[in-house]
């Protein structure tokens, strides 16, 4: 009975995924006439649409293994009538709220590790402030073009990167050793304790400069970049890389979110439904994850990202 319920739910999620894929077309039609029509719509119209849109986005983000921000910013900036400044502000809050909600569980299970996260977070959060100022100082079309190119790059990265469950780290480097970047966690599926340590720490830390700038500049959570650097480059096990990355967003996005907040880039009428919708969607997504077949949804998300990236690129070039 329960299985049947989840099977039905899975069908629903498939349908929801199709809705999001289809919704750009729908939203595009809306936005085509938005300049003149939008003013006639009641104030509650777009927040309501945004809430349901973010709810579906939250489900799909969990199933596809990406953060909400990476889908939120390109899709909402491309297909809703909000200026990119407010979308980035809300995008950071969405990523921040998701990271804060997931962080406690990950920290308690040692899947997010403070010794790995703190040095990296200091670099990323400092650079996120610089990125936020850069993003707010550059002309909107330039940011939109860069955002489009980044989103297309992320889609390619998601399609091609092959994370390693437990990378082999023979010798820990001096920096990793000095910072005590090592730990262990209990792997419930096999009943064993997995011990880990990092290597190539310096190049990893340098890459977090770029990740921080991009997170602040585009208002994206940067999980898509954190995980490959922590896992493939620095050698953290995949579960620790994913857990630490999610927790890391709560620090990186906090610094950038404060910049956007202080600059006045937060409109509660659109930010709150985004945050609440995405969080509710994430809870449903986590429950469905156990029975869903996320691979197909992952491909759909890659397709949506490519589409959204192209749309942002064309919008920045004044074509879209």
């Amino acid at each position, binding site marked *: 009975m329960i299985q049947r319920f989840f099977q039905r739910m899975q069908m629903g999620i498939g349908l929801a995924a199709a809705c999001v894929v289809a919704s750009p077309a729908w939203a595009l039609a809306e936005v085509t006439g938005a300049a003149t029509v939008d003013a006639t719509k009641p104030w509650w119209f777009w927040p309501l649409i945004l809430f349901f849109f973010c709810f579906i986005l939250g489900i799909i983000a969990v199933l596809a293994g990406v953060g909400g921000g990476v889908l939120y910013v390109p899709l909402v900036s491309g297909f809703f009538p909000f200026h990119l400044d407010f979308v980035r502000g809300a995008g950071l809050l969405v990523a921040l709220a998701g990271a804060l909600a997931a962080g406690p569980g990950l920290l308690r299970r040692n899947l997010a590790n403070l010794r790995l996260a*703190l040095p990296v977070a*200091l670099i990323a*959060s400092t650079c996120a402030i610089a990125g936020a100022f850069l993003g707010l100082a550059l002309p909107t079309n330039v940011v939109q073009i860069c955002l489009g190119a980044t989103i297309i790059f992320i889609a390619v990265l998601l399609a091609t990167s092959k994370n390693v469950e437990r990378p082999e780290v023979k010798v820990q480097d001096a920096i990793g050793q000095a910072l005590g970047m090592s730990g262990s966690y209990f792997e419930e599926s096999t009943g064993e304790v*997995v011990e880990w340590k990092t290597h190539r720490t310096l190049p990893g830390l340098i890459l977090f400069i770029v990740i921080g700038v991009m997170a602040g500049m585009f208002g994206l959570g940067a999980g898509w970049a954190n995980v490959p650097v922590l896992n493939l480059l620095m050698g953290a096990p995949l579960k620790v890389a994913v857990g630490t990355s999610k927790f890391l967003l709560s620090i990186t996005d906090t610094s950038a979110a*404060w910049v956007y907040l202080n600059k006045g880039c937060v409109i509660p009428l659109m930010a709150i439904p985004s945050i609440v919708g995405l969080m509710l969607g994430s809870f449903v997504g986590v429950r469905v994850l156990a029975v869903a077949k996320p691979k197909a949804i992952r491909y759909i998300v890659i397709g949506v990202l490519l589409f959204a990236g192209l749309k942002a690129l064309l919008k920045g070039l004044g074509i879209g």
Partner: protein
Amino acid sequence: MVKAKATRESAQASPEQKRYADLLFYGAWAGIFLMIVTYVIYLTGLLDPHIPLNEIPHLWRLSVGEFLHEANAPHGWGWALLLGKGDYLNFLGIVLLAFMTIVGFLTLIPAYVRKKDWPFVVIVVLEVLVLALAASGILGAGGH
């Protein structure tokens, strides 16, 4: 069985990490609850908003600089003076979320000092300073 329990215990998170997790848990949920409550107050009109609801759809397509000018909206910590208004009341929950990491890091300092883990004391203090600087609005406060 005993062995599995022992190994599981050995892989447990450090006490300061668990404390940080508890703090985030209560803080994040309080923030989200606060956001929902203040949003309901805002939408039901229990408190008058600073920017009338029906004007916002005309404003949210503007850049932030134009928005601030057109809506006579505050920047920096100016929102704190408008907490009696329905729209800016929503900032309470948002700001609570944005403060959680700073508060969490402050709790880590004594733990690392007790352990004499000086590199991490420095990292955590620097992180608090970075986040406090971002929160203060000192950096580039002003319009777009």
